[in-house]
């Protein structure tokens, strides 16, 4: 499927959900509304798009400039060799979004990492807990308002380390 047709398909298929659709070289960028995530991702995985591989899933803190968090999903199509970036803007206070762990198994740990670092809550995630930081760590270190030099001594068996 040619790139122009693909953009047409996006606009036809997700007209209600799409905030913005554009191209970056060979890649596509799709900005969608949070409620539509599971439907859009589910269709992108299937015919005619075949973005079967979830390469990465991450988050950006845009609260200062756009007062929102932005979730970014990188998909790859093994059939066409094309990539797509799906972006979702979330509100700055109490950000949450549906989990895509049901669609891609590897989203399980990736979403835990995003939860660990940014505090995004994934609704429907099978086991949402910290994955990198230790138990008892407070706050979300990759948020822009986490103090750069804040140190949290690790308490272990009663001894502060």
């Amino acid at each position, binding site marked *: 499927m040619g790139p122009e047709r693909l953009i047409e398909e996006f606009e036809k298929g997700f007209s209600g959900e799409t905030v913005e659709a554009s191209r970056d070289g060979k890649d596509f960028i799709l900005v969608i509304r949070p409620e539509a995530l599971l439907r859009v991702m589910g269709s992108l995985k299937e015919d005619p798009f075949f973005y079967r591989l979830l390469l990465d899933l991450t988050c950006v803190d845009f609260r200062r400039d756009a007062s929102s968090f932005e979730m970014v999903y990188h998909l790859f199509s093994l059939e066409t060799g094309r990539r797509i970036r799906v972006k979702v803007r979330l509100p700055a206070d109490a950000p949450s979004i549906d989990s895509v762990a049901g669609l891609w198994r590897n989203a399980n740990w990736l979403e835990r990492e995003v939860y660990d670092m940014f505090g995004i809550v994934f609704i429907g995630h099978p086991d949402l807990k910290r994955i990198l930081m*230790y138990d008892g760590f407070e706050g979300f270190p990759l948020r822009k308002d986490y103090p750069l030099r804040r140190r*949290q001594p*690790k308490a272990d*068996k009663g001894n502060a*380390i």
Partner: protein
Amino acid sequence: MGVSPGAKRTARHMSEGYLTTKFENALGWAREFSLFHYPFVTACCGMEYMSTACAHFDLDRFGAGLTRFSPRQADLLLVVGTITMKLAPVLKTVYDQMAEPKWVVAFGTCTVSGGIYDNYAVVQGIDSVIPVDVYIPGCPPRPETVLDGFLKLQEKIRRQKQEWRWGRKD
């Protein structure tokens, strides 16, 4: 590293003074040249550790040729590489498992001060977790720097008061 029962008995009969001092000197001389090291390697400094320990720079020349991979058999803990907050309790446990007498070398800038990782995840110097005898800076340190640090450790061991009467009741 132990002291033979015979040497212990002899030493026990000596009073504090000339003989004790000479005995401690001998013990220090023996200890500085028979260091069994445990490499606690977590990061890129490990490459320089390998270079130092293997034939090109040859740590064996200084009597530290035997690498032990159990802390119970080691008396020198080489902390090589970045120590994160999550890893700190493990490092503490390894240190606690080593038998006396024991020494610690902080190998590389990360272990000395946290290095470039001035952030939420990394211990800013391992001396907040365990006591350190010799600090070897460098990112990573060249093998010559490591050997220099090692010679400083040997000098420290030679000159320190030798503890050898653990468990003595008096």
